[in-house]
């Protein structure tokens, strides 16, 4: 039996009809255009530039008078892997990169260790205390990042509040060098990232059915076992998202190592900037 085409009364599907089902994707377009124009395309462009032959002056200058001999840092339209070879064989660059990764892991570790208990406490807190705690967590985000970092710089300075306290208590007779160390760089980075981490973990915990905890207790599990066998495993997926956010954020660290670290605590991003301002 052959399939007879249904007569649509001579109605022909127009282009608009065919496109109608895809109309919902228009909702995505503003964000996609923004990402394309200001992130993806520039990034691809940068990628392309990384394959240009260098003129030798500096690997990082971009631009220069186009078409003029010696007028730029790279030769447009050329292809080479030299830049990559140089990056990966140069001890200096490698040490900066290793530090960047190491610093990110350190910041992530400290952040997670501090954030999870806090998030759990917020989750279990009665409603009013919960609101207050969430407010405390997001309050630092109301101030500018630089203000926060400079504030920390003053707080941790040799004549700062923390050192005065240390000497008052008698832990040490002279101020301990806190600022411009790995310690201060880590503290400030953790402070910058941790609100997001706490909020994500808190939100994850709140999606758990509270009767699961009750069921666990009812089945004979102590509060600790209930946490360890039920609450924690179920919070792992959301906690991993928090971890990812924290790592990505820490990898892009720039202000903290620059303003509160020392030349040893330089990440790739802070390196980029100092190289560029020097040239």
């Amino acid at each position, binding site marked *: 039996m052959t399939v007879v085409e249904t007569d649509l009364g001579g109605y022909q599907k127009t282009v608009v009809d065919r496109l109608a089902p895809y109309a919902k994707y228009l909702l995505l377009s503003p964000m996609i255009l923004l990402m394309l124009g200001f992130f993806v395309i520039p990034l691809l462009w940068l990628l392309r530039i990384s394959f240009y032959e260098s003129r030798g002056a500096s690997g990082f200058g971009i631009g220069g008078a186009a078409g003029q001999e010696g007028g730029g840092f790279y030769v447009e339209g050329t292809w080479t892997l030299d830049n990559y070879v140089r990056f990966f064989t140069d001890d200096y660059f490698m040490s900066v990169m290793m530090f960047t990764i190491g610093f990110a892991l350190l910041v992530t570790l400290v952040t997670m260790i501090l954030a999870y208990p806090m998030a759990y406490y917020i989750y279990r807190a009665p409603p009013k205390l919960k609101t207050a705690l969430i407010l405390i967590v997001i309050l630092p985000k109301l101030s500018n990042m630089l203000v926060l970092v400079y504030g920390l710089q003053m707080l941790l300075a040799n004549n700062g509040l923390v050192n005065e306290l240390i000497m008052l208590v008698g832990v040490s007779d002279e101020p301990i060098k806190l600022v411009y160390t790995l310690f201060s760089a880590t503290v400030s980075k953790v402070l910058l990232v941790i609100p997001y981490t706490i909020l994500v973990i808190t939100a994850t915990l709140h999606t758990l059915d509270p*009767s*699961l905890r009750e069921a*666990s207790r*009812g*089945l*004979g*599990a102590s509060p600790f*076992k209930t946490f360890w066998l039920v609450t924690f*495993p*179920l919070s792992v997926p959301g906690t991993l998202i928090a971890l990812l956010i924290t790592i990505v954020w820490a990898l892009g660290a720039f202000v903290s190592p620059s303003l509160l670290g020392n030349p040893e605590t330089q990440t790739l991003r802070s390196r980029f900037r100092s190289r560029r301002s020097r040239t």
Partner: protein
Amino acid sequence: MKAANPSSFERTPSADVPPVLEVRGVWKTFGDAVAVESVSFDVADGEFLFLIGPSGCGKTTTLRMIGGYLEPTRGDIYIRGRRMNDVPLEKRNIGMVFQSYALFPHMTVAENVAFGLRMRGVPKRERAERIANVLDLVELSEFADRYPVQLSGGQRQRVAIARVVVYEPDILLLDEPLANLDRRLRDSMRVELKKLQEKVGITTVYVTHDQEEALSMADRIAVMEGGHLLQLGTPSEVYNSPKSPFVATFLGNTSSYQATVSSVDGTFTDLEIDGGLTVRVVNGGDLEPGENCLVSVRPERVALFKASPPEDQNVFRGQIDFLSYLGAGVEYIIRIDGTDVTIRAHEALPAGQPSHREGESVYVAWEPGQTVYLKG
């Protein structure tokens, strides 16, 4: 063990076995709000007790106090003679089945069932054996390695029961366990649950607002309203001899009226209800002329006649105002002629067709002994 309060509803001890659960004058207040007020009852070994009432009546609060999820503000709870008030819930040997089932989503069926045994330090080999037995009991053996999301509502429900039955708790607590199931499944689960409870012989307290569940499954029913325990008795006691207007109207359909005693005549008493009708009841010897009371009659006790109604019964002539076809039966609402009084009558439909039509004139009749009266 005797109750401090003689007016509490106690089961007459048929055996010398002490009750498994004793609730003694328990109160629960949240701030100024009183959720449970002076509730006392006993549950015998192996008994299936229902706590029933509308939402907010305190039934779930009572259940949660028994389970240890809430502390009573006042009063005591004993399990097998041991005072439970300050015992943390993980130390009470109680099995609670939640309305949401609360299965651990990251554990398989077998792991869920194993949880209670692990917490009790049951060795691995014995654990496996008991899990296999209980899964066999609830007919879920082949689902042992599935995760809760891979199960249907009815299966999850059975896992939730298996998870607590497996460690042989002193008491099984069920909080509206069938509320999340569709009607057909609910009906079959009702039968299964009752059979399971009888097979395991576990003392069970079951909270529901569904009177059908309570009437069909319970050994005894405790009807609660506004934090009070109004009546405790077997399903037929509670259904046929309600002690308060609330109990009369909450369980099953009923037609009830405010009435005044007009004359007392030996075995029978005549009551005048609103609208000037006289209803005859069998006097329990406690009615005096002029007293106010509430009379009610169940729709299934009321018969309809096209002509020549029986004598010596309560007979009124009226018109069928409304007819609802229920499949297995039909319910009529009849307005008594010359009044605004309406009465419900239920007719089973063996022949499949209702015997009367809307608008038809009929006699309604029922025996005086079928009329329930409540003083006050």
